[in-house]
């Protein structure tokens, strides 16, 4: 079963995954949404860390350390960031973190990644602006975005047919670039939210 969901709060995501396991849906993969396998219901302890790795051996060392100490690596790859772990029987601790600082630091790493991604789109925005792909005149005179010869002299059905036919193309022509600032805003928002969670979690008293 596939599910698409989005979390910024790791703790909410952990709770949801534990609830899914309780309903008999076990996390298999997270490369495209959450992929679950139907099995028996289980009371699971699932924890999430956020880490990216430069080298394959760093990732293997990381997973091995968790498996040694009783946490099965469920999903996540070298550069996916999100790492999912399930507690196996032979461990006494109930968490992959033993202090608030390290528990909060995963939000900081997530926030930093979001800000970095947001910044990485900025040069693209500048290039688009300099090459006139971003053209603010289109807001004032959207007619310029229509290329059909004599469109504005047509009348009746003929006009509406041509007009409606070209409108999606005109929108693409004029505003396709807007996905870049939207992406930047979205990443900044994620970064801001997870940074807030970082500060909250850090100051939490256990």
């Amino acid at each position, binding site marked *: 079963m596939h599910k698409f969901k989005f979390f910024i709060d790791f703790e909410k995501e952990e709770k949801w995954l534990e609830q899914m396991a309780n309903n008999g849906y076990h996390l298999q993969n997270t490369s495209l949404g959450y992929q679950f396998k139907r099995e028996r219901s289980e009371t699971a302890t699932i924890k999430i860390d956020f880490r990216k790795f430069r080298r394959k051996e760093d990732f293997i060392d990381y997973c091995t350390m*968790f498996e040694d100490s009783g946490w099965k690596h469920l999903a996540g790859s070298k550069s996916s960031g999100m790492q999912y772990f399930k507690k196996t029987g032979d461990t006494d601790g109930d968490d992959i973190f033993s202090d608030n600082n390290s528990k909060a630091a995963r939000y900081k790493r997530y926030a930093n990644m979001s800000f970095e991604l947001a910044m990485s789109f900025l040069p693209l925005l500048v290039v688009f602006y300099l090459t006139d792909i971003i053209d603010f005149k289109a807001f004032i005179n959207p007619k310029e975005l229509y290329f059909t010869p004599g469109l504005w002299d047509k009348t009746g059905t003929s006009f509406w047919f041509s007009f409606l036919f070209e409108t999606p193309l005109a929108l693409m022509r004029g505003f396709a670039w807007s996905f870049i600032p939207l992406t930047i805003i979205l990443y900044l928002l994620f970064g801001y939210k997870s940074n807030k969670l970082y500060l909250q979690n850090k100051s939490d008293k256990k």
Partner: protein
Amino acid sequence: MDLNKHLPLTETTYYTLLSLLEPAHGYIMMQKVEQLSNQTVKIAAGTMYGAIENLLKQQLIKAVKSTDKRRKTYVITEKGIEMLRLDCERMKHITYITDKLLPPTALGNGGVEDA
């Protein structure tokens, strides 16, 4: 080299450094810390991974060649040993001065009264 900026070491950092007097990988370190601290300090996997990363950055420990392909092995550096010595001296003074100023009987009586 400014050693003082790392001092005093936290209890977890102190035990983590102490666990690396002999080369060891992450899970061995977790077990050693627990054993050295009489089961009072337990470091979970995610926290230990971050701690190793920090200690490497501060050059208090270093990675050494490992025969185990899946597990990285670390050992304490000269700087790390120096740090342990300095912090130990600091704590020795604390215990010395406390013993001197706070008579053991007072401690004992306090315990009895509390109970």
